[in-house]
C-alpha cells in the first residue's frame, strides 16, 4: 500500500483501542564537545516533530536523550541503558558514522529499531546495513553523485583531501568513483587525520599536485581550519568542492572566507525552497539558525512515530514492515522542498531529493530572518543519484 501518513485516516485507528497511547523514543547523540551543536540541533528538530505529532495523533510521545560523547562505545552504552532501563521503543541519533554504525550493529542484534539521524556513511546502507536500521539522511554516494556533474564541469583534474575515518573514506571513494565514471582524473588523494589542527601540509600537497580543483571532503568544524589554511596558502582561487555541506560550519567564518566554496552537495539547507514554516520555528527558538541537522532530527522522529502508528506496534519487526517500501507523505516532504521520498526495501535508505549549492558573493549573503549564505544550483531526484541496491553490498 502506498502509505498515507495523513493524520485523518490514521486517527481513527488510534482511537480504535490501539495499545499505542504512548511512544517513547531514545536519542543518543553528541551533546558535548565539538559536535554538540550538531547533536543539539537534532534534538531541537526532534522536539518540534513531537510537538506536531502529539497534536496530530492522540498519543503521548516521550523523548529521552543522552550524550554519546562522540564515542561509539559510550554511545552504545547509553543506548543500551535507554532501551533496558528507560524502556524506549525505538532509537534515533548519532552525529557521526562511527557511533551510528556501532548502534546499528547492536540494534540489529538486539531487535531494536534505529534511525541513525546524522550519519552519511555508505556502509550504513551498504556492507553493514541491518534489519532494523533506517537511514533518514542521504548517503555519501547520493551526495557525491549529485555534485559530480558540477565537478566534472569545473575541472578535469582533481585533488581530494578527506577526513580519515569512515565518513571521509567512503566520501572520497564515492566522489572519486563519480569523477572517474565521467572520465575525469583524480591526480592525488590525501587522508587527513580527524580532527587535525594542521592542514598546512595537506594544502601544500594539494598545491604541489598542480590540480586546478580540490575536493575538500573534511568533516565538521575542521572544514573551517582547512579553508583558512587554503586561503593562507594562496590557492583559494582554485575550484573548491565539498560534497556534504552544512551551512553551520561556514557561519563560524567570516563571509570572505566562506565565499571560497564553489561546488557543494547538500541534503537540505536554508537555501532550499521549502519548509519556511519550519525554518521560522527554529529561528524563533533563538539558539541557532536552521540547518540540516534540525531537519534530520525532525525526520527521524516523524518517520519513527508514524511507522509505529501505522504498525500499531513498536516491535521492531512490525515497524520494519511498516517502513520497507513506504512512500512518505508526511509534512517532511514539503519541508524538504518537495519530490519523491520513500524507504527503499533493499537497503533501508530514505530515497529523497538532494541539492547542489554554491556560495553567494559576500554582499549577497543574507543574515535575516536566518543565515542564508549559499544558493541552490540544482535539485536532483533521489532515484537519479541513489546507487542501485545491487551495488550497495547490502542484502536484506
Amino acid at each position, binding site marked *: 500500500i502506498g502509505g498515507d501518513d495523513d493524520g485523518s485516516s490514521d486517527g481513527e485507528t488510534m482511537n480504535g483501542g490501539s495499545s499505542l497511547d504512548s511512544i517513547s523514543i531514545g536519542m543518543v547523540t553528541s*551533546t*558535548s*564537545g*565539538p559536535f*554538540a*551543536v550538531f547533536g543539539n540541533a537534532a534534538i531541537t528538530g526532534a522536539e518540534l516533530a513531537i510537538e506536531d505529532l502529539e497534536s496530530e495523533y492522540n498519543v503521548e510521545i516521550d523523548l529521552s536523550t543522552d550524550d554519546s560523547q562522540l564515542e561509539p562505545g559510550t554511545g552504545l552504552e547509553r543506548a543500551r541503558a535507554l532501551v533496558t532501563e528507560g524502556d524506549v521503543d525505538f532509537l534515533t541519533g548519532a552525529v557521526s558514522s562511527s557511533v551510528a554504525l556501532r548502534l546499528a550493529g547492536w540494534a540489529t542484534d538486539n531487535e531494536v529499531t534505529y534511525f541513525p539521524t546524522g550519519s552519511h556513511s555508505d556502509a550504513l546502507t551498504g556492507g553493514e546495513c541491518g534489519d532494523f536500521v533506517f537511514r533518514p539522511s542521504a548517503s555519501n554516494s547520493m551526495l557525491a553523485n549529485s555534485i559530480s556533474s558540477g565537478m566534472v564541469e569545473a575541472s578535469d583534474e582533481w585533488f581530494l583531501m578527506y577526513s*580519515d575515518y569512515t565518513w571521509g573514506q567512503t566520501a572520497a571513494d564515492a566522489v572519486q568513483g563519480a569523477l572517474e565514471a565521467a572520465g575525469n582524473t583524480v591526480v592525488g588523494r*590525501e*587522508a*587527513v*587525520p580527524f580532527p*587535525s*589542527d*594542521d592542514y*598546512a*601540509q595537506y594544502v*601544500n*600537497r594539494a*598545491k*604541489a599536485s598542480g590540480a586546478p580543483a580540490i575536493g575538500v571532503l573534511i568533516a565538521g*568544524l575542521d572544514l*573551517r*581550519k582547512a579553508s*583558512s*589554511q587554503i*586561503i*593562507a*596558502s*594562496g590557492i583559494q582561487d582554485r575550484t573548491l568542492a565539498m560534497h556534504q555541506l552544512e551551512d553551520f560550519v561556514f557561519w*563560524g567564518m*567570516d563571509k570572505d572566507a566562506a565565499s571560497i566554496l564553489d561546488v557543494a552537495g547538500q541534503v537540505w539547507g536554508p537555501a532550499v525552497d521549502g519548509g519556511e514554516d519550519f525554518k521560522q520555528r527554529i529561528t524563533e527558538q533563538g539558539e541557532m539558525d536552521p540547518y540540516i541537522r534540525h531537519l534530520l532530527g525532525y525526520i527521524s522522529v516523524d518517520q519513527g512515530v508514524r511507522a509505529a502508528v501505522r504498525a500499531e506496534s513498536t516491535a521492531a519487526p512490525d515497524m520494519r514492515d511498516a517502513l520497507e517500501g513506504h512512500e512518505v507523505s508526511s509534512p517532511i516532504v514539503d519541508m524538504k522542498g518537495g519530490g519523491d521520498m520513500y524507504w527503499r526495501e533493499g537497503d533501508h535508505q530514505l530515497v529523497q531529493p538532494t541539492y547542489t549549492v554554491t556560495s553567494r558573493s559576500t554582499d549577497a549573503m543574507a543574515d535575516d530572518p536566518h543565515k542564508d549564505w549559499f544558493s541552490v544550483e540544482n535539485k536532483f531526484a533521489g532515484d537519479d543519484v541513489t546507487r542501485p541496491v545491487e551495488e550497495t553490498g547490502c542484502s536484506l
Partner: protein
Amino acid sequence: MSSTLDARTRMQRLLSERSPAALLGALAGVLLLGNAAVQKPGLFIDQAIGGLVYGMILVMISLGLALVLGLMGVVNFAHGALFMLGGYFTYATMASYGLPFWAALLIAPIGVGIVGIVIEVVVLRRLYGKEPIIGLLATFGLTLMIEEAARFVWGASAVQPAKPEFLTGGTDLIVTQVGTYRLFTVAVSTISVAGVYYLITKTDFGLSVRAGVQDGEMTEFVGVNLPLRFTAMFFLGSAIAGLGGALRVVEFGIDPGAAEEFVLLAFVVVVIGGVGSIFGSVLAGLLVGWAQFLVPVVLSALAIVTGVSAINVQGISDIIPFLVMIVVLLIRPRGLFGEEGLLE
C-alpha cells in the same frame, strides 16, 4: 640544567658520539631526504618551510611545560588546560569586551598566569620534592576542573575571535607561501624562547630557581624566598602556555577538548628534547615539525622509486611525533639532551 649554559658543547658531544649504526642511519636519512627532494622539489621546499613554521609553533606550545618540568620538577599536566584558558581569555577579551588583538595578547597570558599562581599556591606548593608522578596526577585532576569550568562559562562548542586584519592571508616567501599569521606566531615563539633561555641560564633568578628544585629547604636556609620564586616561575610557565593559547585561538578557535589535545604533544616534544633542557625542547619541536611535514613526502617519493605504493602510508603524520619519540628514546634513553637522574 646548568649545562644548558653551554649548549654548543653538548651539541658537539652529541654529534661526536658516532657509532656505525648511527652513521648508517644518518646516511639512510640523507638518501631518503635526497630522493624526496629530487622527486618532488617544489613540495619538498614547501614542506620544509611549513615544517619549520609548525615546529616553532610546537616549541611555543611546549616551552612553558619544559620550563616547569625541567626547572621545578613538576609534571604539569594542566599545561594543556592553561593553554586552553589562554585561548578563551583571548576570545573573551576580544569578543566580549571588544578589545583589540594586541591587548588580548597581553591580557590573556597575564590572566592565565594569575590562574597559574592560584594553582601553584593552592595545590602545587604542597607537592614539591615529592615524586613527579604525584604532580602529574594532581594536575590531571586540575585539568578536569579547568576544562569543565571552561565548558560552564563558554559552552562546549568552539569559539573563535576574528583574526586581526593585517595578519590574514599569506605571505610570499618566494619559494612558497605561508600564512602571515603563522609567521607572526613563529616570531613570538622565537622571542619567548630567547627570553626564557636568558632568564634561566644567565640571571640570578634562574640560579635560585634551579637550586630550589634540587633542594628546596636548603635553598631557603641560604636565604632565598623560594615560595615567591616558584610562584613567579609558575606564573611564567602558565603565562607562556596562555600566550600559546592566545596565538592559537585566533587561527583555529578553541574548545574545551584542547586541554587534553595539546598537552600530550607538548610532553612528547619535551621528552624527545630531554627533560631539563630548554634547548633540547626547541630542537625537538623543530624535529617533530619537520618529521610531520617531510616524512609523508619522503614516503611517497620512496613509493614512486620502489613502485610499492603501500609505502605511502596514509594519514601517518598523526603518529609521527610518537614514532620520533620511540626512535629517539631507544637510542638515547633520556632524550636528546636529557640529564641523568632528572625525573627518572
